């Protein structure tokens, strides 16, 4: 995304000034709630903001350091617990801490546990590291049920974010004020994490990802590099946790669970680990698939899982790499050549998808809801009787049409896509044989 003469982001399509991109980002954050002003969209935007910080922080390890962590919710979750206790204490007047600074408490708490747990986990790398992080998240989750005084047992800890004197009339009661608080912290955290990628430690962690053995022979202790990166990542995770605590006014054991850790892994991967901004996309799509889709269909988890599998299999670089590859094609002026076949493949995929969605929705309705609500349901504006064959036949027909169309168009798309990218890579290689 950001352009500079670093080449880790080598697909940077446009040489726009960094200022322009950051201003644009700020502008989007400011006007987003004005565009999406219906119903629950503000709450969804707020959630996206917190998850963006979480996913970006997670990617400091996964994308930049090649460290697969299964237990990152420990840092965001414990940050959230400390934040909510701080809110309660400040609410009682026991300590002085205005709400906008609560994320710092979460960050410092996350960092503290990064220092503590990271010392153990970063002693190892690769699969061993992943296993230990899984162990730690289970450990912390078990502890959360063992110490109800701090963790609040199964009910969690609740709080009220409206306390103290309003500053300039801002109470943080209305969701919009909370959104802007989250947007503010998101903006600085993103700058902070991007800046990290441009520091000596940020570059050496890339080297550790590529080839840890060689790093030892250029003077760096790889364990120390991983440890320090994890501590910094945990700091930003803590900030994200604290913002979630402010947003929901409750923190439960789910915040420190392996489930939450898995979710951030899924989102980050979907967005794309190879690019700095990938996790931002991942958070948007991830929250959309979990929260928004969850309002429409009971099958949301199925869709999320299926989507994740498709991304892993066909676009392992995530959505970010899909975008950047297409932009690269456009930059080399070859988009016209791929567009017809790209459009054909996309349209046929959508038709196929429609058939699959109809099928899944009818199946869910038939097996789970037909007894209590009857076999009929509304789908895309039509009333479908899931007990009669018509709906199933239509879904099947749509799917088959899509499939046939897809198989017809796939070959030519693959050919053109392959040709174009080979040409571009040859150009990048600088005419080397």
């Amino acid at each position, binding site marked *: 995304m950001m352009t500079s003469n670093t080449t880790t982001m080598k697909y940077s399509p446009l040489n726009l000034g960094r200022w322009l991109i950051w201003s644009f980002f700020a502008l989007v954050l400011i006007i987003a709630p004005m565009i999406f002003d219906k119903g629950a969209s503000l709450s969804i935007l707020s959630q996206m903001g917190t998850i963006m910080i979480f996913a970006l922080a997670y990617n400091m390890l996964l994308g930049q350091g090649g460290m697969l962590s299964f237990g990152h919710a420990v840092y965001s979750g414990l940050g959230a617990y400390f934040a909510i206790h701080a809110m309660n204490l400040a609410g009682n007047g026991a300590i002085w801490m205005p709400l906008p600074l609560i994320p710092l408490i979460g960050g410092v708490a996350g960092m503290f546990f990064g220092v503590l747990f990271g010392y153990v986990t970063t002693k190892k790398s690769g699969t061993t590291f992943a296993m230990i992080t899984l162990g730690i998240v289970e450990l912390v989750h078990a502890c959360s049920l063992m110490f109800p005084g701090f963790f609040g047992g199964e009910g969690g800890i609740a709080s009220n974010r409206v306390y103290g004197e309003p500053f300039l009339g801002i109470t943080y009661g209305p969701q919009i004020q909370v959104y802007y608080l989250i947007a503010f912290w998101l903006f600085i955290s993103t700058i902070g994490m991007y800046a990290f990628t441009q520091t000596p430690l940020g570059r050496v962690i890339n080297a550790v990802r590529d080839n840890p053995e060689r790093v030892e022979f*250029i*003077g760096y202790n790889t364990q120390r*590099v991983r440890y320090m990166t994890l501590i910094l990542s945990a700091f930003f995770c803590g900030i994200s946790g604290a913002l979630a605590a402010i947003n929901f006014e409750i923190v439960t054991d789910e915040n420190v669970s392996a489930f939450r850790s898995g979710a951030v892994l899924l989102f980050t991967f979907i967005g794309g680990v190879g690019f700095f901004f990938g996790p931002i996309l991942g958070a948007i799509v991830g929250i959309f698939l979990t929260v928004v889709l969850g309002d429409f269909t009971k099958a949301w988890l199925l869709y999320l899982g299926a989507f994740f599998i498709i991304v892993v299999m066909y676009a392992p670089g995530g959505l970010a790499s899909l975008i950047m590859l297409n932009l690269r094609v456009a930059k080399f002026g070859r988009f016209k050549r791929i567009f017809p076949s790209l459009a054909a493949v996309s349209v046929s995929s959508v038709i196929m998808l429609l058939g699959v969605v109809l099928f899944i929705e009818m199946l869910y309705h038939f097996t789970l809801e037909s007894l209590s609500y009857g076999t009929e349901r509304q789908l895309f504006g039509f009333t479908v009787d899931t007990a009669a064959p018509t709906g199933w036949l239509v879904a099947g027909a749509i799917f088959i049409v899509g499939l046939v169309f897809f198989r017809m168009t796939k070959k030519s798309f693959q050919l053109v896509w392959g040709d174009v990218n080979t040409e571009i890579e040859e150009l990048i290689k600088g005419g080397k044989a």
Partner: protein
Amino acid sequence: MSQYSLELQDVYKSFGKSEIIRGAALQVATGERIAIIGPNGAGKSTLFNLISGRFGVSSGDILLNGKSVLDLPPYEINRRGLSRSFQITNIFHRLSVFENLRCAVLWSLGYKYSFWHRLNGLKDAQERAEDIMEQIGLKRRRDVSAGLLTYAEQRALEIGITIAGGADVILLDEPTAGMSRSESDAAVELIRKVTIGKTLLIVEHDMGVVFGLADRIAVLVYGEVIACDIPSKIRGNAKVQEAYLGGHAPVEG
């Protein structure tokens, strides 16, 4: 300060029951270029791994500038002024040529684990990296990912990473392996150029390279240095002829 840059004293190394290095001894004076030759399986690469701290020795001592480096991790030995290259290309594939070299100079310039410096603001690191890039002839490949370089270019980058930190003892493990004649000639020129004033230890199979580059040649057979002398004397050494070449002296070319 000892007169030797590098000194191996009666070094032994065994893996399980098999003894790979048995009493190797070698003294390398400052600024000297020594080639290590020997038949396959003589333990040349193992010797490098012991010196650079990749493996620990079983017994004996290794002195770098007069101080023992036994049991030190590789990064610690590197910080004391010893740098090595690898037989199998060992670079940072997804980073560009420039970033590869910049990573390699950071520690020696004292930036350590800094996350408060802006990389692009570090003029010294930038200049140093550009400088090395010029020397190894990869200037026009500056922004290409290292994984996309040709084999010979990757080997040159390997040498670049090794010398970038400014270490004064350089270990090169078969730098010309797998190269064509002209590539190998270019590599030798490069090595000669970048190791001026440095102490060099080089493992090499190509006798042309060995005789052209080395001040002295050390012959390693079954984990022992059976001879270490100037090239002309090595050629006539009876022990070397027998052990290493089955009666045929090393021939140039």
